[in-house]
């Protein structure tokens, strides 16, 4: 059975890739398993300058999920290009670079720098980080801003651009349509939902940043709904994510209309989860009557159009 999937800029051995921010720059996990098994790797967000990120604690555990407020810590785009990409270029795995910023100009500059390299095969435009004061999510909840940053980044990028959408919106379809119209080659969805946990003893939010992004199986029904809805209204491919723990979850995203998937939080629960899912996927596809990954994409849509998002 073939797991191969071709997406703009990406030839994927299989549809499984670690999600941005949950796999660093691949180096640590290369001690755990052979990265060549992966369909692709989405590396941690890059900004122009190095960022320390938020104070600790930066993570908390919730029912079937977790909160994080890392705050886009990274060494800056030039350091990533010089210190991290050479290591990754030794692997036969397409690299997708996650781009963040506080202004349209920053998104543009970071993209320019990254797409100078030959290692980066696609950009994931992160307009949905809930954990920084400036930028990030503000671009991700306003269709006009989202379209603007998308078209400006497209104009300078030498590789396809996937726009990563935020679920913190009342109308995900409007966001998806706006970035598609602005030239996005694909979508990546969903990022985290903004949440909080309060420590009863200290009487303070557990995260130093107070709020953080909720991820994990808790949010999977929201992710599935959004992928399903967006699939009915846009034609560019979707990298689906949000709470995937196993190969059955992958199939659920494919049925909803995702063309490939990313695995985030599950890596912390089980660092071998990506190769384990890759191994289990053919059996699960077969069990449910599919001959390939391609064959399953969008097969959950049989009864017309659904749109419950409201402006």
């Amino acid at each position: 059975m073939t797991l191969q999937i071709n997406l703009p800029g990406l030839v994927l051995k299989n549809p499984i890739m670690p999600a941005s921010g949950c796999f660093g720059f691949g180096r640590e996990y290369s001690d755990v398993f052979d990265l060549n098994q992966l369909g692709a790797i989405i590396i941690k967000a890059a900004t122009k300058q190095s960022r320390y990120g938020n104070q600790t604690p930066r993570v908390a555990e919730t029912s079937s999920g977790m909160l994080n407020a890392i705050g886009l810590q990274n060494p800056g785009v030039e350091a990533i290009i010089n210190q991290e990409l050479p290591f990754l270029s030794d692997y036969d795995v397409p690299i997708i670079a996650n781009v963040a910023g506080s202004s349209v100009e920053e998104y543009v500059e970071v993209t320019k720098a990254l797409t100078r390299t030959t290692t980066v095969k696609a950009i994931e435009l992160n307009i949905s980080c809930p954990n920084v004061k400036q930028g990030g999510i503000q671009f991700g909840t306003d269709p006009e801003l989202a379209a603007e940053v998308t078209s400006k980044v497209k104009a300078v990028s030498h590789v396809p651009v996937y726009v990563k959408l935020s679920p913190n919106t009342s109308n995900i379809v409007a966001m998806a349509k706006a970035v598609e119209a602005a030239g996005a080659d694909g979508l990546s969805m969903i990022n985290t939902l903004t949440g909080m946990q309060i420590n009863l003893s200290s009487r303070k939010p557990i995260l130093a940043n107070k709020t953080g992004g909720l991820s994990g199986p808790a949010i999977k029904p929201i992710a599935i709904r959004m992928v399903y809805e967006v699939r009915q209204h846009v034609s560019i491919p979707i990298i689906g994510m949000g709470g995937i723990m196993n190969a059955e979850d992958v199939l659920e995203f494919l049925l909803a209309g995702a063309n490939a998937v990313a695995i985030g939080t599950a890596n912390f629960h089980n660092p071998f989860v990506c190769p384990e899912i890759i191994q289990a996927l053919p059996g699960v596809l077969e069990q449910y009557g599919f001959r390939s990954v391609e064959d399953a994409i969008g097969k959950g849509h049989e009864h017309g159009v659904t749109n419950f998002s409201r402006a």
Partner: protein
Amino acid sequence: MINKELLTIVETIQIAKETIKMRLQGSEKIKHAKPGQFVHIKVGNEGSHMLRRPISIADVNQDQQIVTIIFKVIGSGTDHLSKCHVGDVIDGLIPCGTSYPIEQITMDKALLIGGGIGVPPLYYLAKQIKEQGVEVTSILGFQSSEHVFYQSEFAELGKCHIVTNDGTHGFQGFVTDVIDQLDPTFDYYFSCGPTPMLKAVSSKLQDRNGYISIEQRMGCGIGACYACVVPTNDGSNGFKKICKDGPVFEANEVVL
């Protein structure tokens, strides 16, 4: 190289108030675990506990391929773990993090300063350096007498002073009070415990050579998620990851 080991519980016993000692048998890979390193333990399932729990290695029996952990029940994960039985199998990433660099340093006398659940990693350290011929003095702080554990184990390896906050066992006060009172001689100190204690100890002993081991909430436990960073002390705006570059650091390397 971190392994995902299936560890079989061969002993689980309460050794002090809310404090469990557990012995876990695994493959021969676990023999290489060193003092200061930790196991990143999966408890329950993804619905109940998404994140693993870091617990220090308190001892290793290399022949039997058994690691000992000692943990305090403070929340739902440790509570769940405390209810596991002999024969149950738990999934742990091991060994995680750095160890005390005892092979790189030479010393005659070592001072070990532990507080509460910071005591366990010092035990395996004490055993190993004692074997190297180092004279070990330990100062172990607990809340009160009912929380005290491993006094005799440490006493077998050298002088052991207990201090409790409420004076119900040993000295009364904090470990730093005991350092003041006894003024022990040592070449290196090694400390593990709650952050306020580590701050007090490292500022009191600031011109001495020493290593501390610190805690932070963790995600991955292997250096990939940046949940557990701590700023470095060299003015470079740099940082270390506790799970990967630590948990053991030179005393003045990081900002507590």
